[in-house]
């Protein structure tokens, strides 16, 4: 009974979403206040019914109702309850439901926090999001119904959740990532609404900006968690594989990075308007493309679930409609009059333009590498694969190119600035960073590593720019003391994010350059060394978990006779599926991670073992965490709040319609 109720709730949500897509849009066209006023209620209605469907599916999972196909395929009675719950989104149907739930969550958020906006804007924004919701609910109901039953042949027990996914990381990684992915639909909806109303101005950018920053922040956090999860769970200690599905989340992130910066210019200076709109359209289109790549199974990837051509076709058509429709609208309605505001070649605008160009080009090269095998295959030109060397060769130089400008950004002035002033501000600290880079580079390894020197130089340069900008803001010449009050959330968020970016670059370069790895055969009593560390295999034993049996190896790690830690990597066999999984053991610290993973048993008492020492690998995730948190902090800025209170509360709809 419960699954049927869930199915009905999903159908009701679908009908309400159609209402949301049609009625307020029609109202905005006919200036019908009553129709437009329905938008928030309809959005909340969709959310409620999707949430009910989601909750009922969760109940089916928790109650081990194996007559439901997805539960039977992805859960098991032995699974710990928390994983029964997260198994809900460890499969195609359930993760799609999560997608829709988060989309409706964003709709409700927009409906709640946009009371100060002109009614016609709110109506259009919610309506556009309603169109997206209709598309995905139809997708869910028509091609991947999560409530499908296996009657009368109900299995006695479930197939179990893929052991790779039985991990705390999976509980939070998909929801966070989807928050970002789907969140990009908000700036998209704002852009489309603005195009429809012909209202592309600074206040539009101010409404759109906090949403964009928050969505982009969540996307950053989601990608970070995915990278971290892959690192400790997949068992070979990599943190980024340029896997097509990683790229699928990374492309909207790159586009979103350009968008976040371009919106800043549009809000502050009223320029780059058409460009900003285009970026918003592309960023969301890339998230749809990502969904297509993941859900259609066209690519070989960790994330691909069983392939189904019908599903792929559905998303492809939806993608074509969304992209085609919005680009058509853009062509018809984009402001044809060039903005009258001008800016000099040496100014903050120009620096942000460089950011935009670099990130757009980066998106294009990643897109090219990701789609190249698909395109060649579609034209029967052979089955190619494009590997990490391609992406590293094109992506790394582009990032190195943008970093010299990043330091200048926070110090620069809008409209007109001089290179002499920049030089005056940054010459001395820049030289200091150069010296530090040259001194630091040989540490940790025997010889001078030019790549590490370059990374320290660029990361230090970015940090110096941010700190100098911070100092300019809070230090005063006339009165003594620091004016912390001048430190706005906007600036603080930017500073955090830029410092985080520097940390990511530093971590990525150091761990890539100085990673030490040995694959070897070890028996009990064997001692191997890796750098300064001594690894001794003390014993082998068997360990039982709730739904698996593990072979466990116990290692003692010493440095100069001092015991650093006892590491216990495992090889698990899960009962329900019989699947084997490697559970790596990690000794983590800020400056280096020690990583041990078991391969296969060799002979009687020995195992294939992979030992790794990964310096500064944590900096990657800490840096990404700073970027994500920085983005979230910017949304707290007072000007986004005061914006709302300045609009008269009485009859805002009428005023907006009149205007």
């Amino acid at each position, binding site marked *: 009974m419960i699954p049927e109720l869930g199915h009905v709730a999903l159908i009701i949500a679908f009908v309400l979403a159609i209402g949301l897509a049609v009625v307020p849009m029609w109202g905005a066209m006919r200036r019908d206040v009553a129709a437009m006023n329905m938008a928030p209620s309809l959005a909340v209605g969709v959310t409620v019914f999707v949430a009910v469907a989601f909750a009922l599916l969760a109940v089916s999972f928790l109650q081990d109702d194996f007559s439901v196909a997805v539960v039977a395929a992805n859960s098991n009675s032995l699974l710990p309850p928390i994983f029964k719950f997260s198994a809900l989104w460890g499969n195609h149907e359930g993760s799609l439901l999560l997608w829709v739930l988060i989309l409706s969550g964003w709709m409700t958020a927009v409906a709640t926090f946009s009371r100060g906006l002109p009614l016609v804007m709110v109506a259009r924004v919610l309506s556009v999001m309603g169109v997206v919701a209709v598309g995905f609910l139809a997708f869910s109901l028509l091609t991947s119904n999560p409530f499908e039953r296996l009657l009368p042949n109900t299995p006695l027990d479930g197939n179990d959740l893929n052991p790779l996914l039985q991990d705390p990381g999976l509980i939070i990684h998909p929801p966070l990532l989807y928050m970002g992915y789907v969140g990009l639909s908000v700036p998209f909806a704002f852009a489309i609404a603005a195009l429809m109303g012909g209202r592309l101005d600074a206040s539009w950018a101010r409404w759109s900006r906090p949403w964009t920053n928050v969505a982009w922040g969540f996307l950053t956090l989601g990608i970070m968690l995915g990278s971290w999860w892959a690192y400790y769970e997949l068992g070979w200690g990599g943190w980024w594989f340029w896997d097509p599905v990683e790229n699928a989340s990374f492309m909207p992130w790159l586009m979103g990075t350009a968008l976040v910066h371009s919106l800043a210019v549009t809000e502050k200076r009223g320029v780059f308007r058409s460009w900003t709109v285009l970026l918003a359209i592309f960023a969301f289109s890339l998230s749809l493309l990502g969904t297509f790549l993941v859900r259609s199974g066209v690519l*070989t990837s960790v994330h691909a679930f069983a*392939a189904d051509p019908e599903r792929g076709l559905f998303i492809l058509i939806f993608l074509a409609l969304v992209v085609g429709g919005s680009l058509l609208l853009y062509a018809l309605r984009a402001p044809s009059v060039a903005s009258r505001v001008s*800016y000099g070649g040496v100014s903050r605008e120009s620096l942000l333009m460089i950011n935009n160009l670099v990130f757009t080009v980066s998106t294009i090269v990643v897109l090219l590498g990701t789609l190249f095998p698909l395109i060649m295959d579609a034209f029967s030109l052979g089955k190619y694969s494009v590997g990490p060397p391609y992406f590293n*060769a094109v992506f790394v130089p582009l990032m190195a190119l943008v970093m010299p400008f990043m330091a200048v950004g926070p110090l620069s002035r809008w409209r007109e600035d001089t290179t002499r002033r920049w030089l005056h501000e940054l010459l001395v600290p820049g030289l200091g960073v150069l010296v530090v880079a040259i001194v630091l580079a040989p540490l940790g390894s025997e010889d001078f590593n030019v790549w590490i020197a370059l990374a320290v130089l660029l990361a230090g340069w970015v940090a110096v720019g941010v700190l100098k900008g911070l100092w300019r803001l809070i230090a005063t010449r006339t009165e003594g003391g620091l004016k912390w009050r001048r430190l706005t959330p906007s600036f603080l968020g930017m500073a955090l994010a830029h410092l985080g970016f520097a940390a990511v670059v530093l971590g990525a370069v150091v761990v890539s350059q100085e990673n030490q790895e040995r694959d070897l055969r070890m028996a009990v009593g064997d001692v191997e060394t890796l750098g300064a560390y001594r690894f001794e295999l003390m014993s082998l034993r068997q360990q039982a978990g709730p739904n698996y049996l593990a072979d466990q190896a116990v290692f003692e790690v010493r440095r100069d006779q001092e015991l650093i830690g006892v590491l216990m990597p495992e090889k698990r066999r899960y009962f329900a599926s019989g699947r*084997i999984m490697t559970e790596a053991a990690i000794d983590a610290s800020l400056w280096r991670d020690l990583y041990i993973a078991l391969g296969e048993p*060799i002979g009687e008492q020995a195992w294939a073992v992979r030992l790794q020492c990964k310096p500064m690998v944590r900096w990657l995730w800490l840096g990404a965490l700073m970027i994500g948190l920085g983005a979230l902090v910017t949304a707290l800025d007072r000007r986004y709040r005061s914006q709302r209170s300045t609009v008269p509360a009485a009859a805002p709809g009428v005023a907006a319609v009149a205007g």
Partner: protein
Amino acid sequence: MHPVRKQRLILVSLVVVLSSAATGLVAFALRDNINLFYPPADVVAGKAPTDRSIRLGGMVVEGSIERSDTDLDTTFWVTDYEASVPVRYSGILPDLFAEGEGVVAEGTLDESGMLVATQVLAKHDENYMPPEVAAALEGKTASQGQPFLP
């Protein structure tokens, strides 16, 4: 020059410089870093190049996995039920690598026709088959005759 024109000129030249740099990089990077996929039948027929890295995909032949007792060397045969190719790999194999399962191996062919693999990928999910392998096996099943081990 008029400031707006100057601005446009800067923008246009930046776009030109950046996009040509990017195109150059892409062309350069693609030249060496793409691998063609070959099913075993094509490799045995001599259609695969020996001077560069390729991807080989198919099923791991039952009973063909031989592990060394002293180091991490493993050899196995990959088949598409039409022909089989031997593969040698030194290192830790993925968890889902097993006899009778789909696999993609990346590496170069030596003179004897053995693929010296630098990377071995197995499927990640039991319902999931890498698309290349699925295509290579299409229309060929084990019932057409057991794969042979020369």
